[in-house]
């Protein structure tokens, strides 16, 4: 849909106005200005194929292909991150059901589920929507080409995104530091020279001597190891244990026994 361009003066005026408004008033204004909110309220007629508590599905009047549908949340959200989880879940579950309906109704070989967040991503109206597009081979819709991405770039991307993603998911940051062989060798030397920091492995013989508590201790040791794998490791002893999978570190750890 066509967007109206505002002059700088109009923008400034609007900004001033917005500053004085309460969140409720702003929401109401957005609703009045939004074509899709008017479609939802029925002020603008549409071809509605589905309607429930949280969303409606309408036919796109300028479709990518025949049968192209738009799923609109009834509440006005501009982009996906603003939508509460339970509503977002519902929207995608309805999309799944709609996809099935379109496969059957339009006799196609597939569907695209497509969301654009932001104008740069192709979003044309400030109301979140999910496109459900019937597809046939060779229809020239989203003629995507994939390109190989260098391993180095992929690793960099993964690293960059992972930390922020974990924060958003509420996952405790996982710091698994891989030790170099030199670092481990140095530690071995230190351990050999000083008896102060006894590694956990050396507790085993003691535990085995103590016949009464033998079983209990073993269980404890076992559970310790488990939790070490999931949590960031602070102390050196457990880190050696954690790296069980690494053959070279395993060999070095065996030197203690």
């Amino acid at each position, binding site marked *: 849909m066509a967007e109206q361009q505002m002059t700088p003066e109009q923008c400034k005026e609007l900004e001033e106005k917005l500053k004085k408004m309460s969140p409720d008033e702003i929401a109401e204004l957005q609703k009045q200005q939004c074509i899709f909110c008017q479609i939802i309220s029925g002020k603008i007629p549409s071809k509605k194929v589905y309607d429930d508590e949280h969303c409606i599905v309408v036919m796109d009047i300028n479709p990518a292909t025949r049968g192209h549908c738009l799923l609109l949340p009834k509440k006005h959200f501009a982009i996906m991150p603003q939508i509460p989880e339970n509503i977002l879940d519902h929207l995608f579950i309805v999309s799944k059901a709609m996809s099935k309906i379109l*496969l059957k109704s339009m006799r196609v070989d597939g569907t695209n589920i497509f969301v654009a967040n932001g104008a740069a991503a192709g979003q044309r109206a400030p109301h979140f929507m999910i496109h459900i597009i019937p597809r046939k081979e060779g229809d020239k819709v989203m003629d995507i080409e994939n390109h190989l991405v260098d391993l180095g770039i992929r690793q960099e991307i993964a690293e960059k995104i992972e930390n922020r993603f974990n924060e958003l998911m509420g996952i405790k940051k996982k710091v698994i530091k891989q030790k170099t062989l030199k670092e481990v060798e140095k530690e071995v030397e230190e351990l050999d020279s000083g008896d102060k920091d006894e590694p956990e492995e050396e507790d085993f013989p003691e535990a085995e001597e103590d016949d009464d508590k033998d079983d209990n201790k073993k269980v404890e040791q076992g559970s310790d190891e488990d939790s070490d794998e999931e949590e960031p490791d602070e102390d050196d002893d457990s880190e050696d244990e954690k790296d069980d999978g690494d053959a070279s570190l395993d060999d070095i750890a065996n030197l203690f026994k």
Partner: protein
Amino acid sequence: MKCEYCELISGSEKAEIIYQDDEVLAFVKEDAITPGQITVIPKEHFTILEMIPNKLLSKMVNVANKLGMAIFDTMGVQGTNILVENGLGAGQTVPHFSMHIVPRKENDNLALHWDPQQLMEEELEEDFIQIKSNAKEMSISDQEPKKEVTVSSGKTEVVLEDEGENYLLKSLKKRP
């Protein structure tokens, strides 16, 4: 049949994994629409969207949404797309359902768009009637539609819908 994503999940193929739990895995795909694209897949092998249980889909959507936010916060981009290529006709290349999160910048010229068609009013109306009548029987729960949708010809709606899925699966299996 070998599945690229199942091999990745089993660990026999290496990947840059951003997140995984019992049910889903998010990673940086080797070939992408644009660098920074993240792909979310279910760990269990499902071919197409219609086969994904609602609960699993919700989990994937939640992960995809948070990944979208993380991309936005860290990659210096101006937008994101969520894309599902569902079925061979929709550009699906691996027979394992996936959801892509694509970072977007102004004028990046990615082909994630289409030329809007001008349909005749009759064409639009015809499609509308067809879709609306099918959507009446739409069930958004995971349970199969109940027996009440039996059709007089002896064939049931359930059977008809199954045919639709099988057709899609077949077309995917035809891939070399």
